[in-house]
């Protein structure tokens, strides 16, 4: 029993340095959502239910740049579509009844998934849950600090926080570029989005850019 009970703690321990960054991300999410007129509660509810940074930032920024609700939702859900294959990859290692697998699945984020990877397609569910729980608390608490304390901190643009958006997505993009295929998809996605920005409603360029993933239909 001893090694098993340690695994939750090991997962949380591995996620601890990340948790500090996640609190900061949460603060900036709460801050930016508040600045876009979301009020204090909606950002916190979103962090507690969606628990997926890039999709949440995308939702706020699409709405904030005049995009429609449909475009915002579509962008966020397209960004989170990766959790379908990620969920499948960890499914064999989630034991217990369906409701417990359902709850554990909510703790899957890119970081907890990466921490739980043991190589050769194997994942340690306890590491994932330990890491995921810590990151969840960090994300929701950070969001609460940002959205409730938002007005104290001043104008996000004078603080350069709008530049933190592309920097954040760049930081999330870099580890995704693993080979020529992923690099081609990234370049094509950016090119489609930039080409459509002057002509299409806000949000649509992002959705259209997802067509770049159809490159994956080609035989390797």
């Amino acid at each position, binding site marked *: 029993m001893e090694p098993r009970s340690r695994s939750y703690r090991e997962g949380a321990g591995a996620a601890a*340095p990340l948790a500090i960054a996640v609190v*900061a991300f949460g603060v900036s999410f709460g801050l930016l959502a508040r600045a*876009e007129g*979301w*009020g204090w509660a*909606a950002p916190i509810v*979103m962090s507690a*239910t*969606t*628990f997926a940074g890039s*999709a949440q930032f995308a*939702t706020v*920024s699409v*709405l904030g*740049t005049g995009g429609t*609700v449909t475009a*915002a*939702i579509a962008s966020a*859900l*397209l960004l*989170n*579509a*990766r959790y379908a*294959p990620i*969920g*499948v990859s*960890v*499914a*064999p290692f989630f034991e217990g009844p*369906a409701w417990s697998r*359902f709850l554990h*699945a*909510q703790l899957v984020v890119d970081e907890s998934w990466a921490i739980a990877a043991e190589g050769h397609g194997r994942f340690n569910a306890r590491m994932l849950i330990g890491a995921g729980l810590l990151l969840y608390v960090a994300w929701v608490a950070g969001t609460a600090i940002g959205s409730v304390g938002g007005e104290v901190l001043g104008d996000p643009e004078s*603080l*350069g926080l*709008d*530049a*933190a958006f*592309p*920097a*954040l997505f*760049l930081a*999330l*993009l870099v580890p995704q570029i693993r080979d020529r*295929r992923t*690099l081609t*998809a990234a370049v094509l*996605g*950016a090119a489609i989005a*930039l080409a459509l*920005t*002057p002509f299409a*409603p806000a949000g649509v*360029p*992002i959705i259209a*850019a*997802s067509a770049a*993933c159809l*490159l994956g*239909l080609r035989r390797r």
Partner: protein
Amino acid sequence: MSDAWISVAVVGVGTIAVKALGPVALGGRPLPERLTGVIELLAPALLAALVAVQAFGAERSLVVDERLIGLAAAGIALWRKAPILVVLVVAAATTALARLIA
């Protein structure tokens, strides 16, 4: 109901469902190989599009402004293997400084 709350509700329910799909319904059976190949490329394509639009987009036009200086600084920080928190602080601080000077 405001646009923000509608988005929070739909994105929340959608994300919870997508995350639960594999562990609850599929029981660990892998997706067909060709579909996996497509979904693998979704994250790089969308994240790159977000970088581009967030850095250059403004109300249906492309502009070059202080955000690009911040993004370039963030790129250097990433290349120097800086932690993600440092990357964000560098991007924000550089942009804020550029605006102060401009």
